[in-house]
């Protein structure tokens, strides 16, 4: 049992439970009604969770009326009315390891008051408009509405020697003076004397319930199967209710209006046992039988349960052990609770009486009840989904999808009749096809005559007929154009489509071989084009060829553009070079004439390796190199490969720069500008 302790409020509308969460005790108060309204989902309408300070352990809790804030009303009737609303109720929390009593208000989710007592209490509850506490030393404390201690009764003083070492664990007020006290047995404190009542248990009494206008007392203990019902007046046991397993909790309710009463017990195997009409004397049938086995007198009065209630998962769901944790009986309903996910209480409301056909009220639980509860979705929201924050956009995986292209015409339909591709051919259609094939066969006799055994055509047809790819490969490996032409020429047209399919498959797979294979395609189109046009009105059959050709031709425009651009650049270059040559020749001659003075003496002296000459040499070197570059470039352009073109570009640019620099260096600015102007002029005219 994962609940430390639990308690329904007097109206049965709210359920307080203490669970251990993260090593500290947590008090949770929930509305029990909401789960019937929405059925099967967690009760969101009211739920507070109050974690107690670490280390504090809860012994028991009890619902008490709210006497703080002056909302407490002394009139008993009004009190009952008021007690149904949560604001008017508090929960007293008795701690196991502290002298403090917490008075907690579920409506504000706060501890309103802590009551400090001198010794450790074992119980704190509300009886007869007062608050009472019982400690381990048999002291009964009386508190007023403000939880102030007003009186202490030392119960030990009233004990006579016959029951000396009794330690009282529970109490219940009959009246101001009369208190029923319990340890293993029941005692009655009447004013100042304590007398022993005739009801004994093996263990300490768990709870004392006054029933039948306070005439009877119901007591039970944990780990025992008996519920004693004691007549206070006669001081004798009226009945003993026997359950099949040890009892955890018991509730009794009498509907005064219809004179129906019921006793329910929760046993430690998590089942509910029902005693309909427990106080009636007539239902003693089985007891007489039981009495035979027992000699004890009071066993005569023992009653076993009528029916049982069980909860489990639906059969189709994973089996899981569900046990009831607490129960509450009220006017109309039996409220049962069990834990989902070992921590969240869920509720079920069961009507324990209903209208019979003749209008009288009858017990509605008249057989064993099996409740089926589906596993609820306890994750009403998730902040993460598969490690993916829900706030972020969802992404998709393209790798799972089929990717196709707009020019895939394979599934193209002619019209509606073709729709059912998968349908088998009807007999008539098959017949028609047969005839067609015959016709083709007849018609092709002529062609067959034309082909000679051992020619490539025969091999090709064989390869196509038998789907022999390796054989086909040997045929297609022929590179001689005239052989290809002749082979295609001699081939029967009916194989053209198949061959085209095979060819386009190969072309699309291996782009490098295309040159060779293109001959095949070309020749098929030449010699069998007529056949294809007339018989292949359905485009889908030539689909693969279409897509291959599309893919091939896709880049043509771009390549042409590139080629034109490169051509233009080389043209400009060439022109520039020509211009430079023309310009260089004239001024250079002049320059040499102007600047260079030949002095025989110097030459003779071997002093003529001057700077000017060196410059001249450099320049001519560069020019020579450039010419070489230019030639190379033209070759490359013819080769039209994409990648190298870019490199070419940059070379050209570099060259251009160089040229400009040199010209500028040589001729000074004026001339440079004139050259540029000329170049521009030529560009314009072009």
């Amino acid at each position, binding site marked *: 049992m994962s609940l430390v302790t639990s308690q329904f409020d007097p109206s049965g509308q709210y359920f307080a439970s203490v669970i251990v969460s993260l090593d500290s005790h947590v008090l949770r108060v929930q509305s029990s009604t909401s789960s019937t309204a929405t059925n099967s989902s967690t009760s969101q309408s009211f739920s507070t969770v109050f974690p107690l300070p670490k280390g504090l352990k809860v012994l028991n809790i009890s619902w008490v009326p709210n006497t703080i804030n002056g909302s407490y009303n002394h009139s008993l009737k009004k009190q009952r009315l008021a007690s149904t609303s949560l604001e008017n109720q508090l929960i007293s929390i008795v701690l196991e390891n502290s002298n403090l009593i917490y008075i907690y208000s579920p409506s504000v989710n706060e501890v309103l008051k802590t009551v400090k007592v001198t010794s450790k209490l074992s119980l704190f509850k509300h009886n007869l408009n007062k608050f009472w506490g019982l400690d381990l030393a048999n002291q009964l404390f009386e508190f007023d509405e403000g939880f102030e201690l007003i009186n202490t009764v030392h119960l030990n003083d009233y004990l006579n020697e016959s029951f000396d070492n009794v330690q009282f664990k529970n109490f219940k007020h009959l009246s101001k003076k009369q208190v029923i006290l319990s340890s293993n047995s029941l005692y009655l404190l009447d004013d100042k004397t304590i007398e022993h009542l005739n009801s004994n248990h093996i263990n300490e009494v768990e709870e004392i319930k006054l029933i039948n206008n306070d005439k009877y007392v119901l007591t039970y203990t944990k780990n025992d199967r008996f519920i004693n019902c004691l007549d206070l007046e006669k001081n004798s046991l009226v009945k003993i209710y026997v359950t099949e397993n040890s009892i955890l909790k018991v509730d009794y309710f009498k509907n005064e209006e219809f004179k129906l009463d019921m006793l329910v017990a929760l046993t430690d195997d998590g089942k509910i046992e029902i005693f309909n009409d427990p106080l009636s004397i007539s239902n003693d049938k089985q007891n007489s039988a039981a009495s035979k086995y027992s000699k004890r007198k009071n066993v005569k009065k023992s009653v076993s349960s009528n029916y049982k209630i069980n909860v489990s998962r639906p059969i189709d769901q994973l089996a899981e052990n569900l046990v009831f944790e607490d129960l509450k009986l009220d006017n109309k309903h039996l409220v049962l609770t069990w834990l989902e996910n070992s921590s969240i209480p869920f509720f079920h409301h069961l009507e324990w009486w209903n209208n019979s056909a003749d209008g009288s009220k009858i017990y509605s639980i008249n057989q064993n009840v099996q409740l089926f509860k589906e596993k609820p979705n306890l994750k*009403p*929201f998730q902040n993460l989904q598969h490690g993916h924050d*829900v706030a972020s956009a969802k992404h*998709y995986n393209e790798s799972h999808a089929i990717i196709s292209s*707009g020019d*895939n015409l394979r599934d193209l339909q002619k019209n509606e009749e073709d729709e059912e591709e998968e349908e088998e051919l009807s007999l008539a259609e098959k017949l028609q096809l047969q005839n067609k094939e015959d016709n083709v066969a007849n018609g092709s006799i002529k062609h067959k005559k034309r082909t000679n055994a051992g020619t490539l055509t025969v091999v090709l047809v064989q390869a196509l007929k038998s789907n022999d790819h390796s054989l086909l490969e040997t045929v297609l490996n022929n590179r001689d154009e005239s052989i290809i032409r002749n082979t295609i020429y001699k081939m029967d047209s009916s194989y053209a489509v198949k061959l085209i399919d095979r060819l386009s498959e190969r072309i699309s797979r291996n782009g490098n071989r295309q040159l060779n294979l293109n001959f095949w395609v070309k020749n098929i189109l030449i010699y069998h084009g007529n056949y294809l046009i007339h018989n292949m009105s359905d485009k889908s059959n030539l689909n693969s060829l279409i897509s291959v050709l599309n893919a091939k031709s896709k880049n043509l425009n771009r390549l042409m*553009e590139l080629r034109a651009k490169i051509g233009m650049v080389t043209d400009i270059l060439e022109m520039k070079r020509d211009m430079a040559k023309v310009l260089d020749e004239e001024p250079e001659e002049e320059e040499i004439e102007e600047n260079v003075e030949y002095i025989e003496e110097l030459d003779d002296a071997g002093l003529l390796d001057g700077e000017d000459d060196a410059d001249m040499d450099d320049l001519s070197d560069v020019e020579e190199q450039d010419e070489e570059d230019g030639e190379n470039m033209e070759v490359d352009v013819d080769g039209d490969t994409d990648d190298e073109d870019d490199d070419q570009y940059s070379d050209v640019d570099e060259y251009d720069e160089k040229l400009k620099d040199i010209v500028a260096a040589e001729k000074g600015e004026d001339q440079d500008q004139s050259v540029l102007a000329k170049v521009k002029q030529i560009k314009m005219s072009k």
Partner: protein
Amino acid sequence: MTVSANDWKFGFNAGGKILPEGELISPDGKFSLVLFKSQIRVFSLSTRQSVRSIKVNDLSDVVDTAFSKLNSSAIYLFTKTNKIITINWKDRVANPIIKEKTLKFSTTPFGSLLKFLKMDATEESFYFITGKQASNAQKIYTRYIVKTGTGQNVVELANVKNAIIFNHSINRNRIVFFTTKNTLHYAEFINDDEQIELHTVNFQFKTQVTSLAITSGDDTIIAAGTSSGIIQIVYVHDQTRPQRLLKWHIDQVKALSFNHDDNYLLSGGLEKVLCFWNLESDKQQFLPRLSGTIEKIILQEENEDLYGIYTKLNDDSDFEYIVLNAVDLVSRLNVNGVRAKFASSVEWVTKDKKRLRKQQFNLDNDNNTKVKHDFTADFLVHDISKLVYAPSGSYLQAYDVAKNEQSFVTAIAPTIQAGKVRSETLIQDPTIEHFAFSSDGKWMCTFDSLSTPELDDLMSANDIKYSLKFWMFVDNLNGKSLESGHWELTTKIIDPHGLGVPICEIHPSPTSYHEGHAFVTADINGNLRLWKPKFPKKVFRDLGHATSNKKLQQTAWTLRKIRRGTGKLETGAVSISWSPDSSLIALAQDTSITLVDADTFDDIEDITLPSLAGSRIRSLNIVDNNLIIVAKNRIVSFNLLTFASNELSVKVNTPIGAKRLISVDHERNLICLGVNYYTSTYESASRIFVLTPDNLKPVYIANHMSPISSITYSSAHSGFVLLDILSNIGYLTCSVGNIFTQEETEEAKAFEINTLLSNAKQMATVKQYNNKSDSMDVDIDDELSHKLLNATIFEPVLENVENLPIEALFERVMRVI
């Protein structure tokens, strides 16, 4: 049999856009309040759901908000019109506005409220930063720190001249300013907030400062984010300590904030990454892949473990508000408005108004519908999940109208999740151009385009890659998660209409055609292509099930039929319509209409339609036997069987995206048409007409005060769903089943006219309809106040009720009523 306006229900109740100001997280950390234009929405941080919405007239003036410390159910709104509005956000009351007070600002030089700083214990006096409203981020103004209250005079505590930007510390005790002289100033409250101490801080200016933050603890540190991405840390309390530079961002730092104990600095910018700088250990942490660029990081004093973040999702000022848990950096809440991509942005509504007012433009019957801008947006309802879908960029947003919140956003095309900085902004994401749902909602077809970035002078620079995608709806049947199903890509077709040919319209097939599992696409050349799913053969499906091999079970969409256009005409004005009996497809190109046999995909050549449109056709619809043509300046209805024009023919100017403004209810043969127009005060407004194909008199007219962006019919809602320019979603539903009997069509048959007559008639009808609609206005206003309630109206209320608090349920009911 006529229908009174009572039977129609019209209202805009959902949607809207987030305002970028005024978000709050309640002091107990349980709720978050987000401002929309006309409502405050309260979200529960534990369930991520909207638990309440408080209707307030107009919140676009609000500059800041604050919780009252005295009354836990009150919040204060501060507006730029210097008002303090007290609102009860917790309780359900008839009038949530508790108090509305105007501050005495009119005679002072302090301008208007910019930022709320704090209030005193009695909550009578408030401290503000005031000044002129900045129209853009880098403008220079004088900023004042003032103390004021109702009935109190404004007390100036300090002022900073030439301030460009400012920010306050988390506890709002310090305010830091950056001024034009490239200096930093900070102000600090002293003497029980009675005085302000103003300091100037020495600091080495590098580049333009774009964001600021200041610590709230004892050690004063200022962080300044710059446009170059460097964050400068200035230690004010210890002048000997050299300035520090934090380098990670590579573009503008837009938001900065210290955390509560000043150990961490949070920063964000264009990278869509939230950075955490541990100032002591110099360690960094990152939260990448946020949905947009980070505009604001909000830390509230009361909540140490919750960070609010505003991200800007696109250029159209669509924001998302995220609340992050500081412990695990997982979102606790994300709030989105409806994120539709409008053809022209909402700003033009006011700009147009200004322009027209300036010109004193004379509006008459001919040109009052000549709205200059196209305010339409793509928007559809998915009938299975009842979500509305709006594409924006490469994302598709699904919005739950019943819950009034975004359900999910899904990427439709591969995108880079990282933010773009500097030259990366040239790289464009793919954009969704068109999308459509099959009539049963099980399939979705999207068309997106991706243009090549102009990074280098490449020949491929003008290339646009197109792809058509087919998505299967995977319903969330077992209820394991709360999401309402998702889309799974089944087939992607690259260049569906050939290389570089864009598709102009995707049209789903009617239900009568293969259960509606087909789409037809039309491109700019008038080519039509029919796409249908090719289900795997049963043998493979079984095998796939047995071996759980998904590849074998996959459905491929393939091209089935082609109609080749003439190739003579290349126009973007292409529209198609498929008759409900699936036999006929009408194709409009520019001004001409071609009828195509849906079976053979060949043109029907023996029938030539008369020239009906007269201008460029925006949209075609086949309703019953009638062809409804929306052209640039008229709307005509033509009966294809009698081959005569119907009575319905109206002169009206329509925008380019007019096909989004007309929608057809094929069950009841009703047409819903939205028309945007200028009112006499130059406001942009709209009128929605519900028409039958053969009658000029509208069945119903509704008025709306802002331009309509999209109308779509939803069989799930059994009515029309509308979207306006302010991103509000509305419904137009009718509770009566059969609107008209057949008798009236007899009259229409007798209505035979030639073109001349029809022109004359049109002119007459324009006047008629203007008069009529004017007189009708009064009726409608009266009648709108009564509402007809029946069970179907409440249906959306009961959706997704699980996990919904009872208050929220009531709210839904109230919304419906």
